């Protein structure tokens, strides 16, 4: 894998060369190298299985240039697997060829005034771990089998049909950037992630999931994740179903995460396209006064953390919701300059998806942080008194369009009935559909837990750091009566 130094040398030399080309007003060169190692766990007792599917990796590196030409056109070009003169030379020629006159584009990023800079600068490579960057293939496979072994240990002997699936991911991302306005950045990030779902199949099926993640390998406990996943499934024995209705609820961390991913769309690009429920709502109280949300790129150990944006700014924190009031949208340099009259916008979320040189910087969250409250998890259950605990939801989608806060989802595991302020029995997975409205649900916050945890959802950026959250009601429909 290419080193940060190789990337830095490429962007330094590349920028020097590109700036000398005719008709170039300003330029930016960005180089990155990414490596993803994935261990996919698939085990079942009632069908033949592999335990671990193919251990695999995906790797890429290259560079891209953005050029503003004297006639105002902006061009983007990239070159795969090349960091030399041939690479930035051809990327430049592509940028020249691809240039269009984007009337909303004003200039490439310049150093930010002190008032807009990320408040806390991360220590150099604070979110990188050599142990992940140098992880031997055999050790990655060991960890995956360790995770599966942890589940076996908890289950001791299957009392019904078993299905255990999940993944261990190890990611290394390196980037370097330099532009004509003096903005420079370089960084290495690493991520380790384990997630396992244990299903005990029968009548009914019951399911438990656990996960762990960190920027540093030593903090990842794969075996414990496997063990805990199985324990959670075992805790679901004796699950019952419920009838349709409106229920007070504790939303577990994965449920809060899924809802935020689905309907808390606060990128300024989405606002610009009117593809979010929050158009025209800045400064309005939309949620319970207990709800406070921010995007914070500098959380130690959290896998969404970054020291720099992919536009070269020191990363920071953006307050999004304060005491239930929508305070800001996430932005990048392009959109801040497109809407210069709104002074609260900052360019601290200009990232390229997967930190990949092949795309230009869009708007992406880092760590979406739900501020903790004062409740213990048990106190939240007592606060709800009678209702449900929703641990994990599935396929949460804005079925009524992107301008609406409506969502629908199904409850798929780790969920319970709450009676008289206590967990009484498990809730049968796959028997409840929740069809509700995001703003309505989070207007009715009863309390927030004091224990946050880094969580994530399938195929989604950013990560969410959230406590459990009690709400006044969610609308539930009983489904699949004939099956479960």
């Amino acid at each position: 894998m290419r080193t940060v130094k190789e990337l830095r040398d490429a962007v330094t030399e590349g920028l020097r060369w590109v700036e000398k080309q005719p008709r170039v007003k300003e330029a930016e060169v960005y180089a990155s190298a990414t490596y993803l190692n994935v261990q996919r766990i698939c085990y079942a007792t009632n069908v033949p299985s592999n335990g671990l599917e193919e251990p695999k990796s995906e790797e890429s590196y290259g560079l891209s240039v953005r050029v503003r030409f004297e006639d105002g056109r902006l061009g983007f070009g990239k070159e795969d697997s090349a960091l030399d003169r041939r690479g930035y030379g051809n990327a430049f020629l592509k940028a020249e060829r691809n240039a269009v006159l984007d009337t909303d584009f004003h200039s490439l990023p310049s150093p930010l005034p002190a008032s807009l800079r990320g408040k806390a600068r991360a220590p150099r490579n604070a979110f990188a771990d050599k142990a992940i960057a140098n992880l031997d293939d055999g050790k990655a496979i060991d960890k995956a089998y360790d995770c599966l072994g942890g589940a076996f240990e908890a289950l001791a002997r299957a009392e019904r049909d078993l299905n255990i699936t999940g993944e261990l991911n190890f990611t290394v991302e390196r980037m370097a950037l330099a532009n004509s306005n003096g903005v420079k950045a370089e960084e290495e990030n690493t991520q380790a992630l384990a997630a396992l779902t244990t299903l005990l199949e029968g009548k009914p099926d019951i399911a438990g999931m656990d996960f762990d993640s960190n920027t540093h390998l030593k903090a990842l406990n794969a075996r414990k994740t496997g063990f805990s996943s199985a324990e959670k499934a075992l805790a679901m024995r004796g699950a019952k179903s419920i009838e349709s209705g409106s229920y007070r609820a504790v939303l577990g961390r994965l449920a809060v995460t899924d809802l935020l991913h689905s309907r808390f769309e606060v990128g300024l690009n989405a606002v610009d396209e009117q593809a979010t429920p929050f158009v025209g709502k800045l400064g309005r109280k939309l949620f319970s006064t207990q709800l406070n949300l921010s995007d914070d790129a500098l959380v130690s150990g959290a896998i969404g953390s970054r020291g720099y944006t992919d536009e070269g700014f020191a990363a920071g924190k953006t307050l999004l919701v304060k005491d239930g009031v929508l305070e800001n949208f996430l932005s990048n340099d392009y959109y801040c300059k497109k809407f210069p009259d709104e002074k609260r916008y900052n360019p601290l979320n200009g990232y390229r998806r997967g930190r990949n040189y092949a795309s230009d910087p869009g708007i992406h969250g880092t760590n979406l942080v739900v501020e903790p409250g004062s409740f213990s998890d048990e106190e939240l259950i007592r606060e709800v008194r009678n209702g449900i605990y929703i641990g994990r939801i599935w396929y949460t989608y804005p079925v009524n369009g992107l301008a609406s806060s409506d969502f629908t989802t199904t409850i798929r595991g780790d969920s319970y009935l709450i009676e008289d302020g206590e967990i009484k029995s498990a809730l049968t997975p796959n028997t409840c559909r929740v069809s509700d409205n995001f703003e309505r649900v989070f207007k009715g916050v009863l309390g927030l837990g004091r224990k946050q945890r880094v969580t994530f959802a399938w195929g989604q950026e950013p990560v969410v750091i959230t406590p459990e959250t009690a709400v006044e009601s969610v609308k539930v429909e009983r489904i699949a009566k004939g099956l479960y």
Partner: protein
Amino acid sequence: MQAKLLGIEALEPAKDVIVKALDEAKRKAYLAYADVRLDLGEGKAVFALQGNAKGATEDNEMSCGVRVYVEKGGVASAGFVGRSLGEQELNGLAQVLKEMHGLAYKRARANQAHKRALAKKYKFFGKSLTAGKLAPVKACVDTLKPSFKRNPRDYSFEELVRRTERCSQLVQKLPGMASNSVSIVTGLGRQLFASTEGAFIDDSNALTQGFLFVTAKGKAVETFYEWNGAYAGLEVLEGENGFRMNFEDFCQYIAEGTIEVSNAPAMKTTEKPMTVICDPRFNALVSHEICGHPSEADRALKREAAWAGRAWWFRGMDDNEFGKPVASEQVSVFSDPSLQGYGNYKYDDEGVPAKKVYNIKEGRLNAFINSRETATILGQEPNGGMRAASAMQVPLIRMNNTCLDKGDWSKDEIFKDTREGYYLFGQKTPSIGETRQNFKITCWKLYKVENGELTQLYRMGGITADSAAYLKSIDAAADDLHVHNIPNCGKGTPMQSMMVGNGGPHTRGKAIVTGAHAEGRGSL
């Protein structure tokens, strides 16, 4: 000086290199099987917002994947390596493949050793660690040329920018249009597939697609997006597509329809199941979500349970719905990769000739779309269901063109025979249960049907039902089968976005008709 762009012809010299690399790989002691995929895409793409181009590119991408199976003492395991490639690496491909083979083999060996050790340590759990063997197939050698009337290369970059902007401007000036974005892509792709069994498939295709996102502001705000494309050339933009419209007319049609919907009242969810007539594009989502996905053998065999989910109709090898009724006798569902649609291909990413299968035949669960490995487990013939989004990603079982089959009613007969009900027209957004046991799917336009006629239009309409109950309620299927393209089906870890075709004819069944969940900006 012009930028250097690689065309798909650049892969030609790689053919011999790949064959030699596989000959070399065969010498490894425990190698049971290995394959190589090398792909290259070239094309142009433009994105415009509110009538102004925001980004454009003419470029190429290349990647490679090596998959290895090893077997020792009757225990088989796999390993995989994927990389994106640049021109320099294409020139040094022999060395690249040697490294990739070495690493994939090492992974497969380590995997196999752990699998054996795990089975030994946990005797009870170890009994089912028996997968990993590939069903035998004939090693095919074939060359497939791209099919188009007008070569994507013939469209000038400048004209593509102008046309994308023009379409966006056309939409933006419509009264009631709040925002729109348009993109057009056109290009050629080629993949070389070769295996240690002697298969060699040189497969090229063309793709042209336009995409439109609109936000309309009438009495409420309504968003909608739709795409229009085919594995073909520039003729797609001139009307040779599923909508039978040139791209300008398509954009206007979608934009005007969404403006109309934004002025309609929001639907209120019905108390009980109603008669619902679904058009072929709405049925694309129905067939995709509740028929296609649970018919993918890897889901049924629970390999995707952590994220993508399972299939309610297959609990175990001896406990499943094969041969049993899962739908009414009016319902057959097939997966046919020979049909025109985004699921069209001749060989899958294991080099297996792709075959049409009936997933549901006259109401009974019949067959899954499979891979060589899952075919072994299920005792079926391999039918060529493995596809990857790019060569650097591992292939997964993906539906191809999965559709509800046509019936013997005409569309008019279905409407004439329906005194009261709802008509769901166009697809919007699905939400499905983990085992695909229940669904909620929304449509672009929802109409009330009274005495066979369309009356009131609603927005935020859809249907919800348990999958089996809904499929069993279908009492009429028309003869107007249509395949609609879905370009963004997500599956896998890490997630891969795949192009598939789905559809059906007009059908009639019973389901709860859904509407707005709560009052809000979009649901006033």
